[in-house]
């Protein structure tokens, strides 16, 4: 009846006291009580979000001149932040879509939070190009809307316009994917809520879901097709983001390796951010049985893979610069490694390429503290990757008299740190009012991948084979046998 599950695989739901009732209780619990910790962090990040709004207001009022940009370096922190956030947004859809298509059961513990993270990260990302326009009120004209100016349409040859389409499609499709998965879980909360107001709110959110056979059948069809659509979509988005650079004629940007290199980097940074958030969430809401060390190890394997792909891309770029025999390209890379931004390049290399190599050791992959610290390292390293690509390529251009150095102003710093606050603020609200783990999906793997189901099967097998197969659960089963 069920897909085959090797008994050697570790369970994805720990605890021998688990059943459907307990799963519901555990996973809905975070929405039913409020901790002081949560309140304090929400207020703090909320204040940070207000500062973000203030800095954006300052930018609009006084103009882009309040940023540290100069004549040479026209793109700096803004576009760095934009690409960084978009990259972080990639893990959500990767986890929900690609891991669904590959039937990786460990996705059920982390997909919901990762999808939410995607949406919040894309919101943060979108702010940067929009406010970089300067005259934000003209932003609607990036879309081909009918107008009385000619009519004048956007240039459909431009990767910047492709980006507009890619990111808005990505945002709205991720939203659909996320919300359609939330309906059954909102219904779970609705049906167990006591208060009238609470019931009313969750009834609106659940859209009247009941869980009938036909609903589930269509649900599965919808999520499968959305996954199949999102998989090429997620790859296309970062490919197109990389086109923003790759189709230019700036040495250091004009390289054909950019699309796969950016996609790998995006998955890399996205998984790191998922780990950062999930390690906090599992601790804060006592979800250790559902986000297990097994989940963390699986994510760490992806981190070491994508981190190494990114490392190979860095080295390939260097080789190609040398091999091209093109003086300006060679200078750009020489300058990137040994020029005035040496410190940034070294930080990027050590955080992104060297530090994940620790994950070749199983004990490191399964260590929560190492994982948490490394996930932060990767987040920092990936921010510097974009900074290195964008700023070092622009800083020393063809004309030595215009060579420049970029220093951020308080507005630059405020917008960047503010966007992190916005992200965390939205995520905290999500984790308080929404089911952070996909309840229905966790239940659907309960009979295959939980510790309880494995113990039951081992017991059955054990009876048939003289106890040999029950080795994985020797402890509890032995006790059981004596009773």
């Amino acid at each position, binding site marked *: 009846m069920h897909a085959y599950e090797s008994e050697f695989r570790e369970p994805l739901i720990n605890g021998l006291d688990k059943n459907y009732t307990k799963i519901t209780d555990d996973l809905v619990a975070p929405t039913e009580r409020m901790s002081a910790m949560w309140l304090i962090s929400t207020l703090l990040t909320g204040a940070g979000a207000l500062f973000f709004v203030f800095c954006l207001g300052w930018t609009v009022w006084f103009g882009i001149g309040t940023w540290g940009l100069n004549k040479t370096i026209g793109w700096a922190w803004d576009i760095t932040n934009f690409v960084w956030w978009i990259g972080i947004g990639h893990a959500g859809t990767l986890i929900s879509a690609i891991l669904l298509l590959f039937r990786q059961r460990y996705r059920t513990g982390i997909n919901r939070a990762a999808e939410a993270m995607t949406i919040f990260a894309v919101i943060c990302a979108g702010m940067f190009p929009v406010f970089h326009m300067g005259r934000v009120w003209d932003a609607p004209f990036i879309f081909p809307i009918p107008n009385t100016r000619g009519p004048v349409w956007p240039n459909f040859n431009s990767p910047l316009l492709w980006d507009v389409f890619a990111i808005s499609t990505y945002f709205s499709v991720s939203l659909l994917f996320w919300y359609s998965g939330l309906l059954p879980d909102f219904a779970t909360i609705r049906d167990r809520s006591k208060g009238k107001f609470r019931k009313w709110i969750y009834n609106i959110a659940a859209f009247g879901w009941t869980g009938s*056979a*036909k609903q589930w059948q269509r649900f599965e069809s919808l999520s499968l097709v959305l996954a199949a659509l999102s998989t090429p979509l997620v790859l296309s988005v970062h490919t*197109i983001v990389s086109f923003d650079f790759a189709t230019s004629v700036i040495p250091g940007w004009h390289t054909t390796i950019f699309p796969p290199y950016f996609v790998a980097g995006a998955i890399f940074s996205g998984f790191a951010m998922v780990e950062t958030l999930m390690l906090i969430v599992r601790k804060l809401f006592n979800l250790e049985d559902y986000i297990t060390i097994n989940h963390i190890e699986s994510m760490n394997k992806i981190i070491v893979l994508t981190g190494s792909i990114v490392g190979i891309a860095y080295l390939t770029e260097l080789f190609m610069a040398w091999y091209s025999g093109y003086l300006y390209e060679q200078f750009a890379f020489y300058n990137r490694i040994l020029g005035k931004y040496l410190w940034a390049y070294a930080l990027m290399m050590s955080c992104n390429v060297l530090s994940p190599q620790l994950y070749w050791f199983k004990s490191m992959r399964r260590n929560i503290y190492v994982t948490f610290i490394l996930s932060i390292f990767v987040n920092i390293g990936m921010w510097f990757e974009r900074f290195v690509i964008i700023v070092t390529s622009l800083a020393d251009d063809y004309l030595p008299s215009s060579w420049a150095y970029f220093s951020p102003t308080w507005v630059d710093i405020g917008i960047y740190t503010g966007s992190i606050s916005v992200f965390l603020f939205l995520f905290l609200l999500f984790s308080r009012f929404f089911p952070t783990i996909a309840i229905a999906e966790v239940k659907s793997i309960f009979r295959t991948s939980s510790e309880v189901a494995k113990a039951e099967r081992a017991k059955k097998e054990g009876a048939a084979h003289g106890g040999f197969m029950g080795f994985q659960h020797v402890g509890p089963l032995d006790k059981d046998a004596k009773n």
Partner: protein
Amino acid sequence: MASNKFIVGLWDHEEVYLHAVEHIRHEGIEIYDSLTPFPVHGLDEALGLKETRLHSAGFLFGATGTTLALTFMSWVMTTNYPLDFGGKPYWPLPSFIPITFEMTVLFSAWGMTLTYLVRNKLWPGRVPRIFDTRTTDDRLALIFDAEKLSESQISNIKAMCKSQGAIDVKDKVFTENEA
């Protein structure tokens, strides 16, 4: 007229439930609906549900997006406002591909999701009929329409559920018609 009188059988184990569905259908008893807290693999076949055509709808919406994006960009760049971008062709098909792809995905995803909501009767604030509040928690339910059944048929169904491992069987009568 829709029924208001039902029998609700409740199970708490996925495999027992699936077996019960097969057995009950084999006995020729009509199942009105099934309610489960999570998707049960093999339930579609056990209930004899027809395959959904939702993915076909998704394809058609996607094809609409493709066509619309390609024709619109071609019309703008060749007819409505042709512009010379550094001597490049007026109809650069390769650079239309990214936007065409995005629009295909956008139309397909939105069209399919909206179709899904409409077909499943899901919209914000809809108050559904709740047969048992635990069907979204830890109980797998089978619903039988009892409006036109005789007393003996009803007790037969109840006994059948019990013998198939149902942990509870009860009557459910709604006073208002379904919205």
